[in-house]
């Protein structure tokens, strides 16, 4: 059970879905009908939707008033153990990006040109750009993005790096969405683990 402001529910993007890719929804995707709330957290994407109620007052149900809330602070971040901050219901998704072809156990060849790629999504906006840093975030280089399939679609990013002669190589990747929001360099924290989108990094071994 989740509430949406009526203007949001009627914004032309929120929809009640009964088909996916031209077929009826699979059971695990919410057959027969589910709600789609693009750019917002999955707790709004109610599966097996059975009723929609118009309320004339703020919703007081558990998952609005007590559960699924985040600090009303930048990046929804507070210090572990901190209290006394204002909270709001978790709502919009945040931009994120990931490596998919390298991990902390990957060994790369000294001096070689090496392809690096992954995926990114913009959260409640499209993917505007994805950048890679090989120098602990001092400088960032743009990567190439796959075709834009629409605001809420993820996109593949790819680039090529030249591996240094020896030691380790730390790479970081960050996404900026079309609303100008960029992933934070410091880990953001809250009790529910919501909206965590700190810049991902991998440490490669050079051999």
């Amino acid at each position, binding site marked *: *059970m*989740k*509430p*949406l*402001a*009526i*203007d949001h*529910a009627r914004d032309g993007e929120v929809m009640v879905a*009964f*088909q996916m890719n031209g077929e*009826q929804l699979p*059971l695990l995707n919410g*057959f*027969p009908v589910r*709600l789609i709330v693009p750019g917002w957290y999955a707790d*709004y994407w*109610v*599966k*097996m*939707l*059975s*009723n*929609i*109620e*118009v*309320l*004339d*007052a*703020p*919703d007081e*149900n*558990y*998952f609005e008033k*007590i*559960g699924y809330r985040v600090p009303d602070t930048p990046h929804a971040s507070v210090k572990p153990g901190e209290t006394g901050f204002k909270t709001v219901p978790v709502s919009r998704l945040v931009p994120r990006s990931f490596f998919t072809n390298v991990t902390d156990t990957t060994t790369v060849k000294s001096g070689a040109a090496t392809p690096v790629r992954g995926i990114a999504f913009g959260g409640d906006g499209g993917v505007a750009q994805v950048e890679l840093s090989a120098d602990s975030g001092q400088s960032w280089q743009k990567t190439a993005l796959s075709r834009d399939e629409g605001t809420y679609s993820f996109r593949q990013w790819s680039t090529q790096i030249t591996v240094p002669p020896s030691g380790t190589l730390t790479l970081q990747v960050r996404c900026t969405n079309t609303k100008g929001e960029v992933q934070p360099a410091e880990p953001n924290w809250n009790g529910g683990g919501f909206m965590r989108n700190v810049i991902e990094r991998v440490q490669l071994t050079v051999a």
Partner: protein
Amino acid sequence: MATSANAIARGAIVAMGVILLAIATQARWAGQPALAAEAPPVAPAPVVAGGGVTLHSVATNFPRSDSTFPGGREADVINNDCLICHSAGMVLDQANLSRAAWQAEVEKMRDAFKAPFAAEDIPAIVDYLTNLKNVMSQNARRQPDAKHGAVIVAQGTAAGAPPCAQCHAFNGLSDASGAFPRLAGQSAFYLAGQLRDFASGVRASALMSPIAKALSPDDIADVTAYFAGVDAPFLPLKAPNAALVKHGEELAKAGGPERLHCDNCHGPGGSGEPPVIPYLAGQYAHYIAFTLQMWQEGFRKNSPDAMEVIAKTLDDEEILAVAAYYQQVSSALEAAAK
């Protein structure tokens, strides 16, 4: 005039600002009477079409889990209250949480999710969960011995328990009179809980209470493991009253205003939700009706928040209807399969 129109328009916008849509799935426990009242009491059509789109009902088999919380009697409360929704494995894999954290989790299940267990059960559940890692490390339990169970069923015990087969038959089918329930294939966890409740008197029975008291904990584990493992046929029974069956089916599948339907907990067609919830499909109508009356009259006290409440919403005709429906479910399924 223009000013007041503006004021009205502003008022309307402000009012719109606080209008929210509440969007929900049917709550499993129908914690909100309003939702239950709105559920139409009709069985779903297999096909729905409109606007060029046709949706077909789908059938699925969810995986079943018979795993329970280890630890014997200490685990009784958590087994009874939590396995209705949770698999034991998922809970046993949780991190070591503080007592306060478990307390908050358990209260949330009751208050937010409307889990149907009594408030006085909370301390026992929290104790168990707080002690989880110790329970796991001491978990070297005796495995139930179904072969020894079969011996008890056939011969009784030296301590004075008569052979179960006297009334329930060796294959757990009892007999077509319906005076005794069918036990074949019923969950061992459920059967063992009933035996302990007969012994303690939480479920009162002049016949079963002395028998249950004569069984040791190991005997109970063995006998119930035996009956749970029996794959027995369904006895041919007298053709049921079609109108009564139809009414029973409606109650079983859709319930009624502010009332849960039986299948909500007992599974589709009363197929059971083991290990906690017994099957009703193919159970004798006479026994189902009798046991619902036992709930109504307070002779069974081992599900005060669920079955006692539900039984008291049924009148005599409705009891006969659901009983007639469930008795013929399995034979109907077997006939359809031929």
